[in-house]
């Protein structure tokens, strides 16, 4: 900005020329106002009050957060919804009996996926296939004993795989019934009937009355003692059930 031929001269000396240059070249820049110094008003009471609103709201949110700073509780306690019981106004649309039991059974089948696979086909070498198995599709008591107690020795196809560990621990009659219904009606199996919760409960009972309860069953024991269906009133597969309670849905 300093004219090199006049090093000591401040460039704004020629006011007229400078003014013309400014007005011609930079009208917008020349009409600008300067930034003023900051004002010194204090923070008024109503701004403080206004700021208190988000503070209170933030406290409200934190107060509702449950256990903070806990790496163990990944989810706030109570965040997972409780499944409503039958009497409540919430009711899922009813399903036919096979679908209702199978939907529950599919979740329990998660225990079995590790060996028998998501498609129920096993791997052919160490784990047998559930699809088309005689013991799966045949008499229900025999199937239930395998699930509850595990199996050693040859399977229904005559081939010997490894030892299947017992799966009965912690399993309720409902769980067993749902699982059996699911397996009997999935992976290409289509028996079409329902193993009811009464049958499941009966299976637990029978299993505990075995000669040596808890040890894996063998093909001989199965075919000699358990080759029959579980006791209980058969359920028409077309009955509409509440998918949570597995009780017949109230007629609409």
């Amino acid at each position, binding site marked *: 900005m300093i004219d090199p031929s006049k090093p000591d001269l401040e460039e704004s000396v020629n006011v007229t020329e400078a003014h013309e240059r400014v007005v011609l070249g930079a009208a*917008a820049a020349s009409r600008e106002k300067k930034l003023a110094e*900051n004002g010194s008003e204090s923070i008024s009471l109503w701004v403080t009050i206004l700021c208190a609103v988000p503070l209170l709201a933030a406290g409200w*949110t934190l107060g509702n957060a449950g256990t903070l700073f806990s790496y163990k509780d990944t989810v706030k306690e109570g965040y997972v919804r409780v499944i409503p019981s039958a009497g409540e106004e919430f009711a899922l649309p009813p399903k036919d009996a096979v679908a209702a039991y199978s939907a529950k059974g599919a979740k329990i089948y998660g225990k079995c996926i590790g060996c028998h696979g998501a498609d129920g086909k096993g791997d052919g070498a160490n784990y047998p296939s559930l699809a088309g198995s005689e013991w799966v599709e045949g008499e229900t008591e025999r199937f239930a004993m395998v699930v509850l107690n595990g199996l050693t020795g040859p399977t229904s196809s005559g081939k010997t795989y490894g030892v299947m560990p017992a799966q009965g621990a912690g399993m309720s009659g409902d769980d067993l019934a749902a699982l059996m219904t699911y397996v009997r009606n999935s992976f290409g199996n289509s028996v079409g009937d329902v193993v009811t919760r009464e049958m499941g409960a009966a299976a637990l009972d029978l299993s505990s009355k075995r000669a040596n309860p808890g040890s894996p069953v063998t093909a001989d024991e199965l075919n000699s003692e358990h080759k029959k269906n579980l006791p209980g009133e058969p359920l028409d597969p077309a009955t509409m059930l509440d998918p949570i309670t597995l009780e017949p849905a109230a007629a609409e």
Partner: protein
Amino acid sequence: MSQASSQSPEADALLRSEIDRSLRHPVMFFFTSGAAWLAVALLLGIISSAKVHAPGFLDSCSWLTYGRVQPAHLNALIYGWGCQAAFGTLVWLMARLSRQTCRAAGLILTAGHVWNFSVTLGVIGILAGGSTGVPWMEMPVFAWVPMLLSFVVISIWSMVQFKVRPAGHVFISQWYVLAALIWFPWVFASAHLMVHGFSGSPLMAAAINAWYRSALVFLFFTPTAIAAAYYLISKVTGRPIYSYSLSLLGFWSLAIIAPWAGMQKLAGAPIPNFLPYLGAAATILIAIPAIAVGVNLLKTAAGAPETVVNSPTLRFTVAGVIGLLVTGAACVFLNVPPILRMSQFTLSGYGFDVLAIYGFFSFVAFGMIYFVVPRITRREWLSSRLIKVHFFLSVYGVVTVALVAIFGGVMQGLGQEAFAQPWEDAAMRAYPYAVATTIAWIFLLFSNVFFFLHLALMWLRLGRRSSHPTLLGHGHHANLHDSIHGPEGDIDNAGPGSAPAH
């Protein structure tokens, strides 16, 4: 400013115009290419929003399926328009406030082109199906490194300018400009490194991504827009900023609170429980800087109500500041316990993003563009009518998008909470709001057509040659003679002998 006032007004104006001149190429590039990206983003926004309620719309082309158009829309809006408008703003503001001409305009321009090219490839990559599927980071992984590098090249000169500024007072805008320049690479690099760079737990990647989306808004777009608003309101009205204490409160509360916000987007997800709730509380607290800054700026502008009405710059900026206050209110509303449950997986998050990016940031950015472009092109805006149409349609559009998406999202959330009902019911609840969102996007596109046209004419140096600004006032030329900007000063600057240009 004590040094500046010792100079004569002419020398001062000459320095200002030289700074403008030194930056004209990069700043004009950022503003025009940003505006072009805004057009792309709006078009994609209309398509993606239409698909929410009419899934069959344009479904024959795989490039235009919802899963590609929606991320392309947001990426074009954020990295194409938002970031480039912000870069132009930051670079220009820092040069002006540090009273330094820019000596690296060529480098900044080159880096700007690299950024622009990366965003172009990234958005094409998304549309071609190469999306990473991480919200706001959908651009294929190759894009983020050149983007970060070009940002460093763009921003480093502003930091140098701040370092060699004349001694004395640092204006409030400079705090925010510097903060935005420092926070952007922190937020951008850490999020991209954690998500794309290292292979950590995918759950934490989702949490980091949620933090990134919030941090980009609150730690980059917000300080940039606040810097511009402090500058423009103080500059155009010529009034001192209302309260220095409020300025301090606004800056430090933002700096302390904003980094904690963001993970409330994952409330109920299996990440440590305190993260989403702390994020929700911090997001609510964002209302405090919003109130401090909003009150401070509105009080300053309130001293010159006529200027606010007349000046296109101030009208957009003040609307943007009101947008900031509304954003603060939305922060509180969406994160209090009864609503937080319902704001997950709904339209409301999108509505909030649009409110913050368009209703607040973009309005201030438009104000900035209306202020800066006449200075760097040395031409005045052609038509006050074009500006008015742009303003009103934008206001209607963004109010509709934000309100409809936020409330529609809450309604949708209510529908989803009734989990015993089929999910279709929740979708049906959102349906009318989705239709309204599409219509509002069309409004915004329509409004910005006027803006693009106007900016393109200015870019072609077809602006008005006049020493008198384009004001919105009453529209009659006669009134301009006694406006606050002094007597009508139309002059012939086309050279001697030519007819008076007008």
